[in-house]
């Protein structure tokens, strides 16, 4: 009997639960579609053919066309790439900044924790839209603007989470044992504390992906984010609302993938929580 | 011969696990007479915790009672409807557990909780409080009226354990089951609790089932002792007999490895090689045979029945003779 490697067994555990399996399938499908979107789209999403504007679903255009005659299916497929890109990059950025801050706040000198919490509170109290608009004026719209805004506002959440985990883990026996062996601060933070706090972080990150996709959609909807002709689910929704009296198709077809990924990633996150939390408790 | 307060006959309990049923307790016989203190000693995995849970009707959902009876108060507790079992707990049967900190609800005062424990007595609250202060006196808690208004976290472990015993006594039980009550306590406190339990039995006449792995505590408190291994009772004897003339090889090895034995400071302590057998697939014959130095072919094949060596002294071993 071949011995499965640990990552594979982990995936098996996720898939053992029906909701988890659904989430896993959604996540994988989403990633594959996003990465291959350019290849699998029937049309160039930027190709304008006004003569075919706002057509309903047909054999030529499975999901119809938008107000400029662009194929909706292609736009939605390529839009997933935007969604994936923005969510992955901004979450990774936020986690990379937030986690070390949280570690240090939880285990390092007390003044650092106090100061950091203060700063995080300030960030939390800033209105996001205002900030986004300000950034828009300063650097113009685009991928990095959206990523910047989302990452900035996600940092406090991750830092606090890691800080809370670290505070409780920091009292554990194995941390004391590491100190007794002469381990330095770096070793304690990154070899011992971080891997044990990662479980909680992984769960939150997974559940955040649909929120971020939604955020991106919202920001693009407001015109702050991705600019045409690059499609994004948000901009398709935006267009769809303008033409909703002509046809509800655009809104429905852009809304569905948003709902599906939200449900899928939420289920996946819940399943991860079930698997990781009971064992990870110190 | 008076009827025992608690009589367990051929009890078997198993847990359902993904690998199959785990035989935690197999064919255990036990009886506790009125006013008797019976001790159960054994190491991890011997089944003593399962036994206690079975008596109290507090087995987890994965447990199945395969066979046997638990007779208490003229009734068989196995298969007793839940409501009836609930009435017995705190109405004849009382439990004192290992961790005194968890015996009480941290958000209510001690007085309130102990008054609540007497909910079956149809008397006024004033009478109940008087009984509490009385009981505190008996168990050696000073300044009882002030204690009534205090919260559990204000007390030390020893004090709380004494209050837990007081709580058990307030329900006027016929049988107190003490599950490792002194394991978490300091030595000087342990001595006090042991003296308290003995005094309780002397003055109130209740019986006590004392489960512990502290051999010394059992030697000091109990009248009779049962030794359990891998879910089976391997030996039962009056306390002096057991400690002076242990008959079963496991009992002999267990007593020999106790670091409290002060013979020969330089020799390494005797130990018991090997591990407790897997109870999902227990050995067919004697369960101790794989680790026993005297095991014979018969021991491996055939499960030994208790052999009576002397009045009230029995050992389940093929190699002992009456």
């Amino acid at each position, binding site marked *: 009997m071949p011995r499965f490697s640990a990552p594979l067994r982990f995936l098996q555990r996720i898939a053992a639960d029906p909701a988890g399996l659904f989430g896993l399938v959604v996540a994988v499908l989403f990633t594959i579609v996003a990465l291959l979107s350019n290849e699998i789209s029937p049309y160039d999403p930027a190709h304008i053919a006004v003569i075919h504007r706002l057509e309903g679903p047909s054999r030529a255009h499975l999901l119809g066309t938008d107000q400029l005659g662009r194929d909706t299916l292609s736009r939605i497929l390529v839009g997933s790439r935007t969604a994936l890109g923005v969510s992955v990059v901004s979450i990774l950025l936020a986690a990379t900044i937030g986690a070390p801050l949280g570690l240090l706040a939880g285990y390092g000198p007390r003044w650092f924790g106090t100061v950091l919490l203060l700063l995080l509170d300030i960030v939390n109290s800033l209105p996001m839209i205002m900030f986004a608009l300000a950034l828009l004026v300063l650097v113009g719209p685009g991928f990095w603007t959206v990523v910047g805004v989302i990452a900035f506002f996600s940092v406090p959440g991750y830092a606090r989470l890691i800080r809370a985990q670290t505070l409780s883990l920091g009292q*554990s*026996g*194995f941390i*004391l*044992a*590491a*100190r*007794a*062996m*002469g*381990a*330095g601060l770096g*070793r304690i933070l990154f070899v*011992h504390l971080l*891997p*044990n706090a990662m479980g909680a972080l992984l769960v939150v990150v997974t559940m955040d992906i649909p929120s971020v996709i939604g955020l991106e959609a919202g920001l693009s909807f407001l015109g702050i984010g991705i600019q045409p002709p690059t499609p994004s689910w948000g901009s398709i929704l935006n267009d769809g609302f303008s033409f909703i009296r002509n046809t509800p198709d655009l809104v429905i077809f852009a809304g569905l993938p948003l709902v599906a990924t939200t449900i899928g990633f939420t289920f996946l996150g819940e399943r991860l929580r079930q698997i990781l939390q009971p*064992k*990870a408790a*110190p | 011969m008076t009827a025992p307060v608690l009589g367990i006959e051929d009890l078997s309990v198993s847990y359902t696990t993904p690998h199959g049923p785990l035989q935690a307790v197999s064919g255990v016989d036990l009886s506790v007479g009125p006013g008797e203190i019976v001790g159960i000693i054994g*190491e*991890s995995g011997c089944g003593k915790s399962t036994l206690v849970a079975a008596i109290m009707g507090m087995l987890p959902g994965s447990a199945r009672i395969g066979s046997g009876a638990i007779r208490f108060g003229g009734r068989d507790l196995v298969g007793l409807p839940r409501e009836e079992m609930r009435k017995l707990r705190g109405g004849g049967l009382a439990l004192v557990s290992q961790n005194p900190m968890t015996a009480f609800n941290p958000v209510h005062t001690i007085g309130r909780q102990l008054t609540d424990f007497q909910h079956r007595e149809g008397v006024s609250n004033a009478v109940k409080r008087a009984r509490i202060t009385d009981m505190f006196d008996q168990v*050696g808690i000073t300044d009882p009226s002030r204690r009534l208004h205090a919260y559990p976290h204000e007390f*030390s*472990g*020893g*004090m709380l354990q004494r209050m837990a015993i007081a709580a058990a006594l307030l329900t006027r039980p016929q049988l107190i089951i003490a599950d490792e009550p002194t394991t978490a306590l*300091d*030595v*000087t*406190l*342990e*001595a*006090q609790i*042991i*003296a308290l339990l003995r005094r309780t039995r002397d003055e109130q006449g209740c019986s006590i089932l004392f489960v512990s*792995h*502290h*051999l*010394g*505590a059992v*030697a*000091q408190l109990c009248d009779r002792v049962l030794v359990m291994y891998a879910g089976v009772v391997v030996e039962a004897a009056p*306390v*002096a007999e057991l*400690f002076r003339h242990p008959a079963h090889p496991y009992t002999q*090895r*267990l*007593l020999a*490895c*106790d*670091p*409290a*034995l*002060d013979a020969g*400071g330089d020799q*390494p*302590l*005797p*130990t*018991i090689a090997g591990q407790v057998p897997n109870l999902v697939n227990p050995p067919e014959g004697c369960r101790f045979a794989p680790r026993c130095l005297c095991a014979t072919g018969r021991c491996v094949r055939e499960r030994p029945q208790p052999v009576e060596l002397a009045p009230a002294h029995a050992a389940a071993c093929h190699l002992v003779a009456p």
Partner: protein
Amino acid sequence: MIAAEHLGVRVRPGLSAAALLRGHLPKPLDILIDVSLAIAPGETLALVGESGSGKTTLGRTLNGLVRPVTGVVRFEGEVLGPRASDRQLRPLRHRVAMIFQDAVGSLDPRLRVRDLVTEPLRIQRIRPEPDAAEKLLAQVGLPEALAERYPHELSGGQARRVTVARNLAVPPRLIICDEPTAGLDVSVQAEIVNLLVELQRRLAIAYLVITHDLAVARRMSRRIAVMYLGSIVETGPTAEVFAQPRHPYSRALFLAEPSRDPAQRHPPPLDGEVPSLQQRPSGCVFQTRCPHVQDLCRQAAPEEREIAPGHLLRCHFPLGEDPA
């Protein structure tokens, strides 16, 4: 080799709003008061006492985990006082090892045994040999296969042995054993005691055995120190102290241990409980429970005196020759 001199350890409990509103500033708690002891190379000193005695804190002060407010720790010529920096403490931490009461809890749940036992090597920047983990496990009598396991897959006894193995990675001068047999079955306790004794014989390691189990203390140590409420009340050769304890608390402690002979039943030697640290009496710490207490005991705390060679006592009225 290592000595503590007049150590004092104090904690300041956290502020609570309720206490502040009532106008109380939290009083600092003295965990250790004027504690001195010494351990020679290769010897075993047992430290016994009950809850609140401070024995665990003393152990942790000796390897630098807890900093004293007064007094020093002398280790191999270095003098480490309250202001010692982390860098100064490093040699102490590298040569004085510790095993903790909760064996499984002292192992990082995310690491395999293999990485756990070789960690001291990596901390001291020594590259572990490929079979270092297996060799360490063999030294403590564990099978090589255990190297791939995680802490939650180990039994109590196995986890305890893993913590011992870990401390042998870089051979220490002293191992501080904080309740090495706690929570283990009797037969497993015997195995661990045997293992520790044998390792000492082979590797000439000194031990500080902190325990509430008098049998373990008696079996493993040549010298013993008895603690009560933050002070050491009696120190001396184990055999001598057990045979004739000179401090009333030592005597009561030894008497209190339930004898395994059912014929020997006697009333508990001490009433009441250890006072809480907040209520430490002034004068002799044991006055509230001592059967021989006198006025002097309430007025003045006794100094530590040597009443026989190597036998130190803190008592105004030591017990004489006692036929108990």
